[in-house]
């Protein structure tokens, strides 16, 4: 009754302090049962033991400035990065014109970010990609508009890694789809070829394909003809990744309900239309998670090109480490490139989850 009278300034009854806020959360999640309490204590102590020395090493005792003397500090020597980042990131690309690859990479990353949003997917974005790719190529290669020419053999570091993976993945994906469709084909020649190709490629490691492309393949070329080493590695990566994508996509195709094919047939759509408009959009959606796994591991596998003497991110880092001044600081260098790889892979996997959510049409 009294509450009723005090209607203007409502009486707000707060929940007991122990059930909300940080204390409430900890009670509920960390100490809810004796077993949970023990787990919490163990985990916290393990973290304590491992994190404290890491923080000391990485942040407190570390040296950051270029050319600092790291030896004997007991901390991390990030100077190896600040002194050598140009070599690590760009290999032997001439250091006075690094603005060119930097511009190209900024363009690429911005386009990738814009393309994340499906609302921007239109013809204009397609043309922007085409034109930007040409500009990036010109920037890197030079030789026109007074840009000093740079030999492709000198492209290294992150330029090479991005080049191999962006082109590798974008070419391998459609090729993989075609192989998957071919494997389901009713034409025996096409079907046999696709099965043979897929099984053959999946039966050998990428390294052996890279060796084939760099050592064996040139033997078959006519005298005087030579194909650039990067291009050969690129082709090997595309061929390799496509076979794996093909199998993933085949799984999606097999998961499709027969009724979808029949409905498409019964309104008179032809094979290409049926695949493009009805089947692939659904099948590819189902296989987003495994496709992204394949793409992520293909991205990381580009680092295998070191073995055929290409200077990708991993190789440029090793080059730096082989200098006497920086010997022994491999942990720092590898943490740095691991971070770069992680950021790229994380981008792919968050994007794939976003795409899955957007394409999810069976609400309810």
């Amino acid at each position, binding site marked *: 009754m009294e509450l009723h009278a005090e209607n203007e300034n409502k009486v707000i009854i707060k929940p007991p302090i122990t059930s909300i806020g940080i204390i409430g959360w900890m009670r509920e999640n960390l100490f809810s049962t004796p077993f949970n309490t023990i787990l919490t204590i163990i985990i916290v102590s393990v973290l304590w033991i491992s994190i404290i020395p890491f923080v000391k090493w990485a942040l407190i005792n570390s040296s950051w400035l270029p050319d600092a003397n790291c030896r004997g500090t007991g901390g991390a020597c990030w100077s190896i990065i600040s002194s050598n980042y140009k070599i690590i990131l760009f290999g032997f690309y001439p250091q006075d014109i690094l603005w060119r690859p930097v511009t190209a990479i900024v363009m690429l990353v911005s386009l990738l970010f814009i393309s994340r949003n499906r609302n921007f997917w239109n013809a204009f974005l397609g043309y922007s990609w085409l034109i930007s790719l040409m500009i990036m190529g010109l920037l890197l290669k030079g030789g026109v508009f007074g840009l000093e020419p740079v030999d492709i053999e000198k492209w290294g570091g992150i330029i090479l890694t991005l080049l191999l993976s962006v082109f590798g993945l974008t070419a391998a994906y459609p090729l993989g789809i075609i192989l998957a469709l071919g494997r389901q084909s009713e034409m025996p020649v096409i079907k046999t070829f696709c099965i043979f190709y897929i099984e053959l490629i999946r039966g050998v490691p990428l390294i052996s394909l890279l060796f084939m492309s760099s050592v064996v393949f040139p033997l078959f070329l006519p005298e005087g003809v030579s194909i650039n080493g990067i291009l050969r590695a690129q082709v090997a990566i595309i061929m390799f990744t496509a076979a794996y994508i093909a199998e993933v996509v085949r799984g999606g195709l097999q998961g499709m309900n027969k*009724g979808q094919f029949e409905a498409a*047939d*019964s*309104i*008179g*759509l*032809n094979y290409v239309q049926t695949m493009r408009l009805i089947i692939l959009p659904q099948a590819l959606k189902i296989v987003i998670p495994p496709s992204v796994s394949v793409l992520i591991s293909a991205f990381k596998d580009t680092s295998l090109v070191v073995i055929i003497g290409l200077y990708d991110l991993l190789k440029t880092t090793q080059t730096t480490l082989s200098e006497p001044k920086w010997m022994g600081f491999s942990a720092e260098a590898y943490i740095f490139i691991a971070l770069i790889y992680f950021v790229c892979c994380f981008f792919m996997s968050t994007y794939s989850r976003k795409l899955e959510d957007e394409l999810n*049409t*069976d609400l*309810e």
Partner: protein
Amino acid sequence: MNKETSKKVDISSEDIVIQIVNMHKWFGDFHVLKNINLDVKKRERIVVCGPSGSGKSTLIRCINRLEEHQKGQIIVDGIELTKDLKNIEKVRSEVGMVFQHFNLFPHLTIVENLTIGPIWVRKTPKKEAEEIAMYYLEKVQIAEQAAKFPGQLSGGQQQRVAIARSLCMKPNIMLFDEATSALDPEMVKEVLDVMISLAQDGMTMVVVTHEMGFAKSVAHRVLFMDEGEIIEENSPDEFFNNPQNDRTKLFLSQILY
């Protein structure tokens, strides 16, 4: 729905739109369809019934070549069905088909489900295709759902969308394969009503159904199939009141009581 008015739509011309001559079909060694002969005239409505596994679905799926026959002839709208893909696509675009399980495209909205045929097969401009789609959605009384996805509709609504999707191709012939069998009982009527109104508009229809009420009031002819053969063919009155064949009698006694 009044029996007399529905039957008043006369078979005005004698044009035969579906002609099946001595047709056989095998699944491997299994002889599913045996010597089928059937003429369907323009505006005629045929109900096909028979026990499960008798080949009803296979028969009507042969009419738009979802199944291939191995012997005999099937001529639809003057086009003989052979391996010729162009002819098959032509026939399919003239013949609408409604499936037991709707088979809507789940990744497309309702209106996109309806426009995809006109746009890609008929090359209708998008705007016009959308107008056609809305017209048929009105007709099946579901226009307000146009922007939704199939997964958000009830079974009865999905089946009406599926009918509208076929109608958007302006077909000459509609095939129904147990269009109401997968529906909850309270949704059967809304779909049958749409089929009845199609009948009143003079659509040529071949309907596989267990809805004997529909057969009685709408069909011009009822076919009874068993073990891959058409064993009885009659007007609905004769068929239900005076069946000739013993197997028909048995079937009717099981289904009616």
